[in-house]
């Protein structure tokens, strides 16, 4: 079977700061890294491949340096990697991002299973997985804590919601968004790291897609638009207490003992 894994490169330090004078986001010194949740998605794919014959294809959408994500994926055992990169793709919201992923994956073939991480550390919203499933017109499940069984036709999973653990069977093709706790990622292997450099990363740009209309991608293809960014308003606060550690402890205990 063919498994697609979506992985994103994000800033390592998840706090962006804004220069209040210039209104520019300061990202200096923020080394990019693989979104940690997506490592679990790859781990889930690798575990499936331990049990059933499968090819694991990793897709990442981002600027050229996002290729590092693919290299990391190779060093963990991915079979093929695709870098979805084009100036036309940048500035995309959930709608345009998921559409880009959909069209890009289409160029590489048909996938029985698509795996995503729960969310990104820079966006947090956990929406792209469901959006992608809708474009692909396949069933999907979020919050997957366990993949129990994979056959040629179906996958059995356990999902954890606020109050329940739900076990269900999804037919293939389908999309799953997995939780980190169920799929702690393995470390890259030295042997695979050494061969990773030799593997080819396939580049996908807008000209490779079946829909080449730039109005459908990136900022232009987004339905939402950031109208304004600003530092969060500071509110009036209670008087700040500072003093010796003893004094602080005493003061806190006074409140705690109530």
């Amino acid at each position, binding site marked *: 079977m063919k498994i697609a894994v979506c992985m994103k490169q994000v800033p390592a330090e998840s706090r962006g700061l804004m220069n209040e004078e210039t209104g520019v986001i300061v990202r200096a010194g923020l080394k990019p890294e693989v979104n940690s949740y997506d490592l679990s998605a790859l781990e889930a794919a690798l575990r499936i491949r331990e049990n059933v014959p499968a090819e694991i294809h990793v897709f990442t959408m981002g600027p050229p340096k996002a290729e590092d994500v693919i290299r990391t994926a190779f060093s963990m055992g991915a079979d093929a990697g695709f870098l979805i990169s084009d100036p036309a793709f940048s500035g995309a919201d959930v709608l345009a991002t998921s559409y880009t992923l959909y069209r890009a994956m289409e160029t590489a073939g048909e996938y029985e299973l698509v795996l995503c991480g729960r969310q990104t550390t820079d966006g947090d919203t956990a929406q792209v997985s469901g959006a992608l499933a809708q474009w692909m017109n396949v069933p999907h499940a979020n919050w997957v804590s366990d993949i129990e069984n994979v056959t040629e036709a179906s996958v*059995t999973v356990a999902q954890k919601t*606020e109050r329940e653990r739900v076990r269900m069977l999804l037919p293939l093709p389908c999309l799953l968004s997995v939780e980190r706790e169920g799929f702690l990622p393995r470390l890259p292997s030295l042997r695979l790291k050494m061969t990773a450099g030799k593997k080819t990363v396939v580049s996908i740009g807008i000209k490779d897609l079946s829909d080449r209309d730039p109005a459908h991608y990136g900022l232009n293809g987004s339905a939402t638009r950031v109208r304004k960014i600003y530092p969060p308003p500071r509110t009036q606060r209670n008087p700040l207490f500072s*003093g010796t550690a003893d004094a602080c402890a005493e003061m806190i205990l006074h409140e705690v003992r*109530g």
Partner: protein
Amino acid sequence: MNQDILICLETGENGLHASSLELIGKALELAQPCGGSLYGVVMGGNAERLPEDLRGLPLQRVYIGQTCRTYDAQECAETVVECVRRIDPSVLLISGTCFGRSVAPRIAVACRTGLTADCTELERTPEGGLIQIRPAFGGDIMARIVTDHTRPQMATVRPGVMSSCVRQGDRMPELCALSRKTDGHIHLLDVQPLKLAAGIAAQKVLVAAGRGVKRKEDLVMLEHLAQRMGGALACSRALVEKGLLPHEKQIGLSGATVSPDLLLTCGISGSVQFQAGIRRAKTIIAINSDPEAKIFDLAHIPVCGDLYEIVPKLIERLEKDGESVEEVSL
């Protein structure tokens, strides 16, 4: 073009979810600048008690997808899309619950429209535009987001972020049954309730660790403090990202909303996305060595100091007291 608002409602054994009441409350406010009616759509649920659960709510009509199975996001999304086709609302609000976050993006793609998830504030213009406000770039920057050309304007809101709607009067919204058009493809095998007693959302006393807590070993000290105080340990997103604590311990916009009687934060700066999770906390004591820390805006008792000096003293004193402060029953 109407200015109506459609709200995705959720029900459970205890009736309508609190998060649904919060959305309705917000929708009432959002209808003020431009008018428009409020509608609801609910999937599954207990057919017998549902009408009573809806009494007194300011909804014109509620669509009920009785046979829809909540674990199948594809099926549920299609039901909501059918509602959207019938009402053509200006705004569609969904709770940022596990269910809501599975279904919302599918609806957004089906309608080719914009969706902003986890809004901390919502505003409406007199022209009916929905201003979707949320922290961006990790949390120290706010963004005001709009959906210019497409409808409905979709937003999800986490439970506990907005205040509830108060029921008024006796009026029952019109009820309209929706049957599902096609079958979903997911087969349910079984459902088991999770033991929630240990969850941080249920705790009355919480000690929350943040970025200022440097090492995993230090968490032992804070866990100890939490126990001495009769509560549990929680954390901000930073520690979950570092892998020091699991996601269930996370307070914030992408974690849990908590409502303890007492929250003691240690080394938490208080980003907007963290603050969104503690709006319901009764008393907040914050320890941070940075006098400018944003958490101090919200803390009832802001303490500027070194947690590594203060916490051991707290533990020492609590142990000397020989008591746990208020054994809290869960």
